C-alpha cells in the first residue's frame, strides 16, 4: 500500500507559481496519482490525475519523474482563492480498497 508524504504547509504570494511535491516511494506499477483540493467546510474536489511524465489541464500541471517515486503539483500564478488544503492520492486504477489520502498540504496565498 503506497503511502504518501507531503509538506504540512506552504506559503506563497499572489501571482507566483506554486509547486507542491508528494513523495510515494512504494508506488506500484498499477498505481496512479491524483490530486484533490479542499476548501474549509467543503468536501475535496478533484484537480488532476496522472500516471507518468506530465499532465496539464486548465487548472494545474502534474509532473511525474520516470521512477514515479514522487510527483509535483504545479499551480500557475496563484490567487488568494487558491488558499486550500491539497491532497495527494495514490491508488490502483479502478480500486477503492487501496485508496490512501495523505495528510494534505495547507497552501496559504498571501496578498
Amino acid at each position, binding site marked *: 500500500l503506497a503511502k504518501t508524504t507531503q509538506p504540512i504547509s506552504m506559503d506563497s504570494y499572489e501571482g507566483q507559481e506554486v509547486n507542491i511535491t508528494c513523495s510515494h516511494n512504494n508506488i506500484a506499477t498499477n498505481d496512479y496519482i491524483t490530486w484533490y483540493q479542499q476548501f474549509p467546510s467543503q*468536501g475535496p*474536489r478533484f484537480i488532476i490525475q496522472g500516471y507518468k511524465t506530465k499532465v496539464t489541464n486548465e487548472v494545474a500541471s502534474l509532473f511525474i519523474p520516470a521512477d514515479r517515486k514522487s510527483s509535483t503539483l504545479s499551480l500557475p500564478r496563484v490567487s488568494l482563492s487558491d488558499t486550500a488544503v491539497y*491532497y495527494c492520492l495514490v491508488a490502483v*486504477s*479502478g480500486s*477503492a*480498497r487501496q*485508496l490512501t*489520502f*495523505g495528510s494534505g498540504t495547507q497552501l496559504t496565498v498571501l496578498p
Partner: protein
Amino acid sequence: DVKVTQSSRYLVKRTGEKVFLECVQDMDHENMFWYRQDPGLGLRLIYFSYDVKMKEKGDIPEGYSVSREKKERFSLILESASTNQTSMYLCASRERTGEWDEQYFGPGTRLTVT
C-alpha cells in the same frame, strides 16, 4: 451539475446512541465511499461500496457499519456512538471505470459525540 448530498451538516449525539449518516448522489454512480477527516490525519477510508448491496471495509471500519439498498443512497451507521467518533464525515461517489478516479464529495457532516 453533479451532486452528493449528506443528510446533516452538523449533528450532536450522546455516547451509546445509534447514529445514521445518510448520503445521496444523483449521478448514477456505482461506487460510493465514507471517509472520516481528523486534524493532522487527512482523510481515512471507513467503508466503500462498489455496487448495490456490495460493500468492503476500508482502513478504519471498527465501530461502523454501512448499508446500500439503493444505488443512489449509502448510509453509515454508528451502532453505539463513542466520543472518539467525533469527527467530520465525508461521503463520495465515483463512476466505475478502470482508469479514472474522480470522486465527487459531499459537504460533510460534523458529528460531535458527547
